[in-house]
C-alpha cells in the first residue's frame, strides 16, 4: 500500500501540513464525483425528455379539398346523410379509374356500411388531410407565437392541431407507408410472438442448466468448461448471435423454421426468416443470462434445507424439485424477467436473422414473417422525414412502457421474496 504522506509532489518523506489545501482538494474531489453522478442522471432525463418532445406537439395539417367545399346546400359533411357522402366519395375518388370504389363495394355494400365508416372514408380519401409540418412539444408549449408565424408564412392554407403521435389508434393500426396512419400493431404482435418463443425455449433450458451446474455438477473438467463457457457467452456481442441464427436456424434448418417440415406452406414464403428463428435466436442470446441469474438464486437457498431433505431420505431430484426450486423460484423468475426484457429490446440480431422491413398483416403462427417494435423504431428513425421521427418516438414510448411494466413485475417479485425470507 502506498504511503499517502510520501506522495504529495514535494518529494519523499515530507508531510503536507497545509491542511486547508488538502481539505480544499477534498472538497473539489467531492464536487467532481457529485457532478459526474448528476451528469449520469441528467443523461437519463434528457433521453426521456427528448423522446417525449418528439412524440407530442403541434402539426400543420393541409387538406387536399377543404371540407367546406364539399358541403351540399350549406350542410357540412359532418351532418350530411349517408347517400350524400357516398355521392361525394364516388364523385371525387372515381378519377383514379374507379377501382378503389369497386374495392370498397366488394368489401361491403354501401347499404350495409354504417354512416360513420362512409364518413371516415370521405375524410381519408377525399379531404385527404396531410401533415405538412411538425413541431416539437417544447416549441408547442413555449414558442407558440413562432409556430403561428411560421404557419402563416409557409402554410397559409393549413390548420394547426395538437397531435399526440402516441394514441389508441397508433397501437391498433398496422404498419403503413404513410406515417400519419402508420401504427405498431404488427410490431407489437411480432414482439409478443417472438418473446413467447424465446421464453418457451430459453426458460426451461436455462433453469435446467442452472440446476445441473449448482446441484449436480461435481468438480469435473466438463463442468468447469460449461461454466466458463457460459460466462464468456454472456459477453459475446448480440450481433454475433444474429449471425449464428442466420447461418444455422434460417439457412441450415430452413425446412423446420419455415414450417415446410410440418406441411405448413406459408403463401408469403419467409424462407426460414420466421418468428421461430427470431425467437430461438433471442433465446440463445439470453440463455447465459438466465442461467447465471438462476444459479445465483439457487445458490441463495440455504444448505440446511437440502440437508434436512436428504436427511428425510429424499433423493436428489426430490430435494431439488420439492425444496430448492420452490425457494429459488422468485429469484429465478426475477432474473428471467430481466433477461427477457433485454431480449425484447434487442434489434441487431433480428435484423441479421432477417426481420421483414415492411409487413402489414398480423403474424399468426411461428412460421410467419415478422417485425418487432425495436425493428420498427430502427426503420422509422433511419428515415429522414420528420413525421417518421415522431412515430419512432411514439413507438419508443410503447416499448419503454412495455419494459417498465416487466421490470416493475420483477421488482415486486423481488420484494415479496425478501419479505417472506426475513
Amino acid at each position, binding site marked *: *500500500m*502506498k504511503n499517502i504522506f510520501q506522495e504529495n509532489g514535494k518529494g519523499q518523506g515530507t508531510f503536507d501540513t497545509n491542511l486547508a489545501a488538502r481539505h480544499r482538494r477534498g472538497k473539489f*474531489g467531492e464536487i467532481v464525483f457529485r457532478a459526474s453522478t448528476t451528469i449520469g442522471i441528467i443523461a437519463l432525463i434528457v433521453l426521456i425528455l427528448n423522446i417525449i418532445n418528439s412524440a407530442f406537439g403541434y402539426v400543420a395539417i393541409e387538406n387536399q379539398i377543404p371540407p367546406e367545399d364539399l358541403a351540399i346546400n350549406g350542410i357540412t359533411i359532418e351532418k350530411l346523410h349517408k347517400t350524400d357522402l357516398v355521392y361525394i366519395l364516388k364523385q371525387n375518388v372515381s378519377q383514379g379509374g374507379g377501382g378503389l370504389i369497386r374495392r370498397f363495394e366488394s368489401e361491403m355494400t354501401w347499404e350495409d356500411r354504417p354512416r360513420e365508416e362512409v364518413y371516415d372514408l370521405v375524410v381519408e380519401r377525399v379531404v385527404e388531410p396531410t401533415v405538412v409540418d411538425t413541431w416539437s412539444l417544447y416549441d408547442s408549449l413555449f414558442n407558440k407565437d413562432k409556430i403561428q408565424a411560421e404557419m402563416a408564412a409557409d402554410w397559409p392554407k393549413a390548420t394547426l392541431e395538437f397531435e399526440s403521435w402516441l394514441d389508441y389508434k397508433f397501437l391498433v393500426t398496422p404498419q403503413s407507408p404513410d406515417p400519419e396512419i402508420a401504427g405498431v400493431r404488427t410490431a407489437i404482435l411480432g414482439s409478443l410472438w417472438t418473446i413467447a418463443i424465446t421464453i418457451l425455449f430459453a426458460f426451461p433450458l436455462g433453469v435446467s442448466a442452472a440446476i445441473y451446474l449448482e446441484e449436480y*455438477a461435481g468438480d469435473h473438467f466438463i463442468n468447469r468448461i460449461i461454466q466458463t463457457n457460459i*460466462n464468456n457467452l454472456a459477453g459475446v*456481442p448480440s450481433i454475433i448471435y444474429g*449471425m449464428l441464427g442466420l447461418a444455422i436456424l434460417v439457412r441450415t434448418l430452413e425446412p423446420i423454421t419455415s414450417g415446410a417440415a410440418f406441411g405448413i406452406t406459408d403463401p408469403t414464403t419467409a424462407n426460414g426468416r420466421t418468428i421461430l428463428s427470431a425467437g430461438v435466436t433471442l433465446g440463445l442470446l439470453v440463455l447465459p443470462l438466465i442461467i447465471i441469474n438462476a444459479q445465483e438464486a439457487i445458490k441463495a437457498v440455504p444448505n440446511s434445507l437440502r440437508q434436512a431433505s436428504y436427511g428425510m431420505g429424499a433423493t436428489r431430484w426430490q430435494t431439488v424439485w420439492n425444496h430448492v426450486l420452490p425457494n429459488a423460484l422468485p429469484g429465478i423468475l426475477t432474473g428471467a424477467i430481466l433477461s427477457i426484457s433485454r431480449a425484447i429490446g434487442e434489434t441487431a440480431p433480428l435484423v441479421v436473422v*432477417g426481420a421483414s422491413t415492411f409487413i402489414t398483416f398480423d403474424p399468426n403462427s411461428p412460421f410467419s414473417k415478422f417485425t418487432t417494435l425495436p425493428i420498427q423504431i430502427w426503420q422509422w428513425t433511419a428515415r429522414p422525414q420528420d413525421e417518421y421521427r415522431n412515430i419512432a418516438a411514439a413507438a419508443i414510448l410503447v416499448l419503454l412502457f412495455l419494459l417498465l411494466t416487466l421490470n416493475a413485475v420483477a421488482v415486486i417479485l423481488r420484494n415479496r421474496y425478501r419479505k417472506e425470507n426475513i
Partner: protein
Amino acid sequence: MTQTFQERSSTSQDDVLAGSYNRTKSLKKRRRWGEMFIQVVLFTSGLISILTTVGIAYELGKESLNFFTRQMWEQTNKTLQSSIDADQTEFDAGTSGFTLNPGDVIRVGDEAMEIQSVSQGVVSVERGAQDTAISSHPRGTEIFTSRRVSLVEFFTGTKWNPQIGQFGILPLLTSTLIVSTIAMLVSLPLGLSIAIYLSEYATDRARRLIKPVLEILSGIPTVVYGYFALTFMTPLLRAILGRDVVEVYNMASGGIVVGILIIPMVSSMSEDALSAVPRSLREAAYGMGATKLETALRVIVPAATSGIVAAFIVAVSRAIGETMIVALSVGAGPNFTFNPFRPAETMTGHIVRISGGDISYDSIDYNSIFAIGLFLFFVTLTLNIISQQVVKRFREVYE
C-alpha cells in the same frame, strides 16, 4: 457434503419402513433410472451452451474460410486474338492489359485454364482446370484472371467494398476503434467518478435513489440510444461546433452515446470492486489523518484496481460490439478517416446494413460479413477472457 447424504438416502429405507425386517436387506446402492434420466436431461441443457459456442465458432469459421478461399474473377482487359478449339493448348492473348504468369488460373468463357507458360502474349495452358468443361471459344472472348482474398490484404487494405473486390478491413476497424475510444473517454471518468461517489460519499438514501436510475439507464434498449444519438446528440454537436465541422452522420455523437450507454456498466462493476475493499483500510487511512479524497484515490482505488480494470476491459468489449447506436448515427458506408466528425461505418454497423433485407447465401457479401463477424467475435472474446484473468490474478485478497 451432499454426496454423503445422497448415498445414505439411496439405501433401501422403504423396506425398513414397510416392516420387512426378516428379509435380508441389500445395502447396495440401488440404481434409480428416473433420477439418472433427469440428470442426463439437465446435463444436456448445460451442454446447449457449449453447442452455441461451437455453433458460433463453426459457422463463423466456415463462412470466413469460404471468404478467404473464394475464387474471384477479375477483368484482365485481354481477349482471345483468335478462336480456339477444344484440343488447342496454346493461344494468343495479346500483349496489352494485365500480365499473366505461369501458374495463374484464368477463365475463358465458362472454362478455367491453368497457365503453363507465357511468351510474348502466346499462352500455353492446361485446359479444363477445376473440373470445368472443355469447349471451343470464339475470337474476342474475354479472359478473366482469378484472385483470392489474402489475410494481408484483409488486414492492411484501406478500402472495403466487396462488390468491386476491395477487402481491406481497416476502414471498418479504425471507425470501430474511434467510436470505442470516444465511448471510453466518456464512460471511464464518469463511470469511475460515479462509482467512487456511490461507494465512498453517498448516503444510504442517495444510493438507494441513484442505483435504480443507473439500472434504468442500462435497461433501455440500444435502438433508443440510437434515436437519441441521431436526434439529440448530433444536433447538439452541430450547434456547438458548427454545421460545417460536424456532419449529419458522424462518429463523435455515436461514440458519446455509446459512452453514456456503458456508464452504468462501468460504474456498477467498479462500485462492486470498491465496496469489496475492507472497511479497515478506510479506517486506517482516516486514522492517519487522510482526507476523504486521499483515502478514496490513494487507498481504496488502488486496492480495487483489478476489479476496475476488469470493468474497463468488459466495457471496451461492449463498446466494440455495440451495434444499433452506430448503425443509426455513425453512417452507412466504410470510410477510412480519423476525423471523428465525419461519417464512417463500424464493423457491427456494416454487418447490420449488409444483412438487412434478403441477403443471398454464398454471395461475396454474405461471406464477407462472416469474416468480419469472426474477427469481432475473436476480439470481444479475447477482451472478456483477459478481464476474467485480471480479476483472478491481480485480485488483492484481504482477511
